[in-house]
């Protein structure tokens, strides 16, 4: 395991809430240096990485439905 909290196979050690936050902010966990014990990635680490990225809040990546006359389309949330 490296200092960045990733183990063999690139496994990253971070709590579920942090993993979700990373997805929400568009941060790749593998690229974050974890500051927690043994390199565990914390909420603060992810927020800092998001700011460093400059891109900040990328928004969620899931689809959202937009209705058009009973037909549907899938759009990215903005």
């Amino acid at each position, binding site marked *: 395991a490296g200092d960045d909290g990733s*183990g063999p196979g690139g496994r990253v050690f971070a709590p*579920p809430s942090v993993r979700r936050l990373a997805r929400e902010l568009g941060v790749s966990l593998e690229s974050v240096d974890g500051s927690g*014990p*043994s390199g565990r990635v914390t909420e603060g680490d992810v927020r800092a990485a998001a700011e460093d990225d400059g891109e900040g809040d990328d928004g969620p990546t*899931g*689809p959202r*439905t937009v*209705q058009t006359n*009973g037909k*549907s389309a899938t759009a990215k949330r903005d």
Partner: protein
Amino acid sequence: MVVGDIATGTELLVIGAGPGGYVAAIRAAQNGIDTTLVEKDAYGGTCLNYGCIPSKALITGANLAHEAGNAEEMGIHADPVVDMSQLRDWKNGVVDQLTGGVEKLCKANGVNLIEGTARFKDENAVRIAHGGEGQGSETIEFEHCIIATGSRVIQIPGFDFGDEPVWSSRDALEADTVPERLVVVGGGYIGMELSTTFAKLGADVTVVEMLDDILPGYESDVARVVRKRAEDLGIDMHFGEGASGWREEDDGIMVTTETEDGEENEYRADKVLVAVGRSPVTDTMDIESAGLDADDRGFLSVDECRRTDVEHIYAVGDVVEDTPMLAHVASKEGIVAAEHVAGEPVAFDSQAVPAAVFTDPEIGTVGMTEADAEEAGFTPVVGQMPFRASGRALTTNHADGFVRVVADEESGFVLGAQIVGPEASELIAELAFAIEMGATLEDVASTIHTHPTLAEAVMEAAENALGQAIHTLNR
């Protein structure tokens, strides 16, 4: 939302109301999605009606009767008589309460419920045939769909579930008498749970398993604890034999088996329970019309959000390739799919999936074994705590088994755990949570655990991995 006059429309259609489907439907509705749930049989699916719930209810009854009848050592003298049809009625009452609850919860969350069998018309519509004669059918158009049609029991040549002496797990759970002699084909978790249950209820049980141990997939020292106890309960286990057929006899039936080198054996019985596995239900609803294709075993492949190859159609639960066929996996996948439909940044990213076997004693496992960890490139360190050194285990008179924790030596991160022993199904929760949290051995070891509890054994196993257990010797 009515589309034209022949079809109704829904934002999300969920097919199948098992723990995958009903949980998905409720979560979607909670997220403001107009959701329709279609079920052809019973709310709660296999799990509530023919699986997890009825089996655990019977296990409770069998355990209580058996324990009370075998506690002379503790000064308890009883000779319990079990009225199997009453036990079944009680079990059915539990099932009814829960399935009724599921229906109510769906409605309270605003899910539209439809009874019937769904088949795809195309990739945006299903045709639903209502049950019962002359009930007709209707078309529903959807923007998104979640397939949660679950699984069915596998039949093997020579054993037709239509024949009265041949039981599926569902038949076993419906029994209103205890067969005198029961042959169980298959020593997997369902076979072993039911073997134990019927042995405790008084049946003479014989297990026939093709492989060379019960509970394939579990480590041998874990399986051994259960096998030893099964032996003590008088369960007769035969390995390396496949069941080949059965015939009527004057007195009951005769089940025949065959070894790899063609040797035949025969076992007298009154019933034969075939529990060799389950296969996904994806072949009865024209998935091709929706542009979908199952693998050769019938499973659907999905991405981390549980989307199939057709982006707006998701699949969750027993129909999904690669994840274990377990109720809590189905529910988690249902939640992920539903939230993804609602635009949430979700993924099925669980680090480890816990699993339990409700044998005697129970098994609870999560994440990696020592061998898994090695294979994945970690240098594993392992800690163990036998329940016979646990004060709480001794006071409950159930002290077989152990807690084992597997961690990465360098970082201390917990990677997995294997528990066999009292309440293993509950104890695994803390370690599953530890793995999700990215916790270390030290985190587990330095958390105060209530005395006297079985959970202390979790802490002691972590201490043991650190070379500093108090209640067991450190190696």
